[in-house]
């Protein structure tokens, strides 16, 4: 029996050692919100550093590089930006726990750029209840811009998937008005959003979706889906996938000897992480969209923003590949975040949201002609323009003009 008492004592001691007493600060909030002082502002994000979508981890690196550069120049209004990131392996339950940890334990001022449609949907309700800003989420889910009144603390950043789908339909109407389309899509909010956007935009035209196949983000391969899509006889392949599956789809199209017009969605269109592993010869002629400058495009070699980005990234993470477009993405989103912090009048979350909702800026790393603009409750979509790009030879080549596709 004494054995049990000893066991209990040891465990109780370990427990006490594990945590510190509950502080009283979390009840009295006072004039400023948590996570912000005159010297520092803490932001937090949840990213897939592991798991099937781990290609996106470099977005966090890009964002951190921008914040590092801001901090080196003295911060925003005297505040250094601290960016805390956690791994969720692209799984919604872990994103929920991460958001909880970031808000309650790391006491972040705002969540910034958390990645994944499903992951952001999973935390959206609770962070809005807690009035914690969930800013510039790394997903094009249209739900993050269409519901400003219900979710005033949440905003997207990149063009949403409905906008992107409109740009593809616009392209097909001109290039292939009688397209028979086979679709591969990720079976979650992201995939369904882009697919629905495409079908809506194609209504009333001769563009027909004749086959659809879905996969789960946790699936190991998509080969059986690809074989079915090929046998549908479609001449156009709409590829709504995240990087791992984008690469698999490109390889599968080549192996099956299928020669459709291959439209690859923006979130899978990384040369460094998708096309190269799949083999550049298999990637010729793929059509996609973009809205920021491609670090490999010689056109931007002397561009000031591009130079700034490359030197900033090198300083922050010397081993990072500057040609990985996801770094550029993170860099750009961080610029919008910094702009909002700069315009914030009071150190409160409510004041930050006011600044965010009146965003109207030119992010230098975006393509010329593309603005980042929000307008109160009437416009919840920051970026609503894209340009078609085609993969030719060794790199993406911009096609035509920037297409403005506002809601």
């Amino acid at each position, binding site marked *: *029996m*004494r*054995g*049990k*008492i*000893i*066991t*209990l004592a*040891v*465990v*109780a001691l370990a*427990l006490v050692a*594990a*945590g510190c*007493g*509950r*502080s009283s600060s*979390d009840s009295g909030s006072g004039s400023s919100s948590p996570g912000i002082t005159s010297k520092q502002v803490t932001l937090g994000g949840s990213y897939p*550093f*592991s798991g099937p979508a781990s290609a996106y981890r470099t977005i966090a690196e890009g964002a951190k590089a921008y914040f590092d550069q801001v901090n080196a120049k003295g911060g925003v209004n005297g505040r250094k930006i601290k960016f805390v990131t956690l*791994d969720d392996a692209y*799984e*919604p*339950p*872990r994103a*929920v*726990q991460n958001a*909880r*940890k970031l808000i*309650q*334990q790391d006491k972040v001022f705002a969540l910034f750029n958390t990645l994944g449609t*499903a992951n952001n*949907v*999973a935390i959206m*309700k*609770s962070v809005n209840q807690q009035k914690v800003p969930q800013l510039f989420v790394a997903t094009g889910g249209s739900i993050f811009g269409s519901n400003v009144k219900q979710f005033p603390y949440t905003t997207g950043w990149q063009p949403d998937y409905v906008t992107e789908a409109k740009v593809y339909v616009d392209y097909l109407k001109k290039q292939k008005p009688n397209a028979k389309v086979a679709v591969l899509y990720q*079976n*979650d*909010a992201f995939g369904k959003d882009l697919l629905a956007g495409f079908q809506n935009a194609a209504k009333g035209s001769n563009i027909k979706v004749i086959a659809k196949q879905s996969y*789960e*983000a*946790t699936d190991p391969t998509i080969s059986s889906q690809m074989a079915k899509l090929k046998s549908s006889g479609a001449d156009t392949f709409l590829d709504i996938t995240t990087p791992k599956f984008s690469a698999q789809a490109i390889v599968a199209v080549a192996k099956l000897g299928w020669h459709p017009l291959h439209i690859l969605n923006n979130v899978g269109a990384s040369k460094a992480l998708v096309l190269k592993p799949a083999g550049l010869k298999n990637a010729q002629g793929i059509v996609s969209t973009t809205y920021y400058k491609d670090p490999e495009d010689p056109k931007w070699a002397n561009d000031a923003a591009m130079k700034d980005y490359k030197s900033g990234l090198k300083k922050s993470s010397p081993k990072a590949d500057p040609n990985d477009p996801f770094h550029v993405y993170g860099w750009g989103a961080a610029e919008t975040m910094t702009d909002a912090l700069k315009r914030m009048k009071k150190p409160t979350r409510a004041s930050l949201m006011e600044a965010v909702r009146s965003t109207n800026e030119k992010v230098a790393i975006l393509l010329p002609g593309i603005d980042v603009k929000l307008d109160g409750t009437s416009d919840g979509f920051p970026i609503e323009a894209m340009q078609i790009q085609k993969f030719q030879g060794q790199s993406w080549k911009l096609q035509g003009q920037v297409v403005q596709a506002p809601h």
Partner: protein
Amino acid sequence: MSERRVRIATLVAALAVAILLPFFFEPFRNNQFSLVLAYSVAVLGLNLLVGYNGQISLGHGFFFALGAYTSALLIAKESVPYLLTVPAAGVVAFAAGFVFGVPALRLRGLYLALVTLSLAVVAPQLIKRWGSLTEGTQGLTVNQPTAPGGIGLANDQYIYLLTLAIAAVMFLLAWNLVRGQTGRSIMAIRDNEISAKAMGINIARVKTRVFAVSAGYAGVAGALYVFTVGFVAPESFTVTLSLGLLAAIVVGGLGSVTGAVFGALFIEFVPVWAGDVNQALTGFVYGAVLIAFMFVLPGGMASLGKRIKRIRKRPAKQDTRPERTERTTAREGLT
């Protein structure tokens, strides 16, 4: 002091520590403690099956998921008061466990392990398959219980105490079960099935019921998980959960009621600490700690006190054979 008194004093002290805990920690930590309680109920249920009855299940994550989704769907879609969803989750999982317990009668050891493992593997797939009901990959957000006004508790403290109360009831029930006549038949089957039969125990009946009760415990744990996390998705209930529950028994101590709490603490906190050591090597560090545990404390945490006492009493230069002794003490457990 008589043994009984010591036992009661220990229990009261443990309960007091458990009740006071949420007043000393941050909300996030309390949330983790609530999760530990939820897991401990599942571990306890699995221990009834594995530790006391000698059957095995690698698929209790399935029943955990069943309970969680039962509770989540009832709260989110039918607006059922959340306390009522606890027995509902328990009953649904109990029924599923009963149905599954029948074929389990014909299998033992490795074969039963394999069949139950398949349950764990299909759980996330089934949830995705019935997407119209379960919201599929997207998952289901559930409003968490909120503390009634005027009692001076924050939500995290309230949820913790609620979970603690339900867990305490489940522990009491399990303790009563293993102490009585039923408990003796359960263990008799584990120790020697033939002699148990000879003594007039209805093997099939006891085994299927233990399986069902054990699944029911996992179901209740699932409902508690929903209260604590407020969100369910297929990826919440992967094979890792099932294996984690089994690992928790090993860590806590086979055939020990109190060991369930230690096991649950282990599966909640060790992966977090392992992640702090190295984010890329979380699984590796966790596995290494688990293996180290089996070497150092083969009887589980429940035997820690006994072990310390024995080391203190051990006369110098005498070769005891700890592993053998350990195993027998673990078997004796709380009988």
